[in-house]
């Protein structure tokens, strides 16, 4: 296997972009990334996108984007794995370069969500659950996570407000990220008072629906040339799956796919959980971030929320998470989120994270579909 480097990144601000469509957002992040990498073409484009058919009526998205970015003719394919679409696209891009099939590829994540409102978006998001046995019963994606959170609170004797520290941390970190959607801090009190969307999950516990696109350029050492010395390297990449439905898992509070993908990635990168300096988890809901910390071996079972309560997830804590705002405050354009995570971790590992800079050599991202049925873990190392 060949070494794989990230030689360029690009991202649009995460917003409700009323004036821009998916192709526009995706292509502008591609042009940024190409310019940064000093190239004008690639061997292939992998597009992470979860819902463009459901939300915008557009399929065959990858060809559309390649053409709009001036890369007509390039091999291009869309990758779908619900909330893990972005991470899954990175995984395919990594495989293509590591295997020697391609020397330079683009991985783009994009989601355009603001064209539909409330119930229609909830219906689209619920397609990541088991349609015949979960969605048919009116379970929204927030409701599925609420079932996990309620049981977790019961098993570990916690209150709703204890989960606030994840959102408080994410919002604090988003203040300094110009690409983030919510650049203002929130308080534990505001979290407690926020309107419920699916009890016990509230608005301030749910990553917001948003539009955005992010792109990375992946190169083999040969294609990277001298740039390899100053580029972040992907040293671990793994994807695992679990039953889609919560009720089909022996213990719904244990994310088997997260554990499997994290441990494969650790083994490949030759690191232990203790050596992870920074972690970008899939914090679509606080409970998911807590369960991810536990399944990844970064917190003992039942201690994920306590880690946040004790301030260990802050920039100056033992394991900083969501350092640029995470899904909660940077915003959650579903299929793009996994690529935003890589872009943000690359910023950190290159020393380009500005006021939120963490002293880190090894970092990890995790992109999750639904309530944990697809999990993609990547481990990156600084130049």
């Amino acid at each position: 296997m060949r070494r794989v480097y990230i030689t360029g990144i690009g991202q649009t601000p995460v917003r409700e972009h009323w004036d821009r469509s998916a192709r526009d957002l995706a292509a502008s992040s591609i042009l940024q990334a190409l310019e940064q990498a000093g190239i004008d073409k690639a061997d292939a484009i992998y597009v992470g996108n979860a819902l463009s058919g459901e939300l915008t009526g557009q399929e065959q998205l990858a060809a559309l984007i390649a053409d709009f970015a001036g890369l007509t003719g390039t091999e291009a394919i869309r990758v779908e794995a619900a909330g893990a679409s972005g991470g899954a696209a990175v995984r395919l891009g990594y495989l293509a370069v590591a295997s020697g099939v391609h020397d330079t590829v683009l991985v783009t994540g994009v989601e355009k969500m603001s064209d539909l409102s409330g119930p229609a978006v909830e219906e689209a998001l619920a397609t990541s659950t088991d349609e015949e046995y979960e969605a048919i019963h009116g379970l929204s994606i927030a409701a599925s996570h609420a079932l996990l959170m309620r049981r977790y609170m019961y098993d570990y004797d916690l209150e709703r407000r204890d989960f606030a520290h994840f959102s408080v941390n994410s919002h604090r970190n988003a203040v300094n990220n110009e690409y983030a959607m919510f650049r203002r801090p929130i308080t534990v009190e505001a979290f407690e008072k926020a309107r419920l969307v699916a009890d016990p999950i509230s608005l301030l516990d749910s990553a917001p629906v948003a539009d955005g696109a992010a792109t990375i350029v992946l190169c083999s050492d040969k294609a990277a040339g001298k740039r390899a010395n100053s580029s972040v390297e992907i040293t671990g990449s793994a994807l695992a799956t679990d039953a889609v439905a919560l009720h089909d898992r022996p213990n719904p509070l244990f994310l088997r796919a997260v554990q499997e993908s994290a441990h494969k990635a650790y083994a490949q990168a030759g690191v232990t959980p203790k050596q992870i300096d920074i972690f970008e988890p899939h914090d679509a809901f606080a409970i998911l971030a807590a369960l991810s910390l536990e399944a990844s071996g970064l917190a003992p079972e039942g201690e994920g929320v306590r880690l946040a309560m004790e301030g260990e997830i802050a920039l100056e804590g033992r394991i900083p998470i969501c350092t640029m705002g995470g899904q909660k405050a940077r915003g959650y354009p579903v299929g793009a989120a996994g690529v935003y995570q890589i872009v943000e971790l690359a910023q950190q590992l290159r020393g380009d994270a500005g006021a939120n800079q963490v002293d880190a050599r090894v970092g990890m991202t995790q992109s999750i579909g639904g309530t944990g049925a697809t999990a993609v873990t990547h481990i990156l190392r600084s130049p």
Partner: protein
Amino acid sequence: MSLAKHWRLQQQRYRLIGVQCEDCGAKLLPRRLVCPQCKSHNLQPYSFKGQGMVYSHTVVYDAPSGYDGYVPYPAALVRLDEGPLVATQLTDVDIDEPYIGMPVEMVTRRLREHGESGMIVYGYKFRPKLKD
């Protein structure tokens, strides 16, 4: 809107029919082709009694299309007496009544409608267990 996609699930929706593994005895709902415990393909239909306890619960306020007319409504994961969990709405109950461990039983109720002249989908919900 498809009739067949609901019709083909009538055994599950109306009678809680799952499968039992003939090799290791595991009782599974919904039905599967391969036993997740012993990988056996020898699975036979099994009828669940529809009795259980609330494993976890929620109240949905922001609902998907087709359900937004019913909010707020309670939903749960129910642990059936035979072992499996089942995702379901709770019915015949106030939204602040459900608790973890609450005894519940299956009933057949309307799950959703597809507009004024469209199909009405029925299936299982669970209600607090009636006293004997």
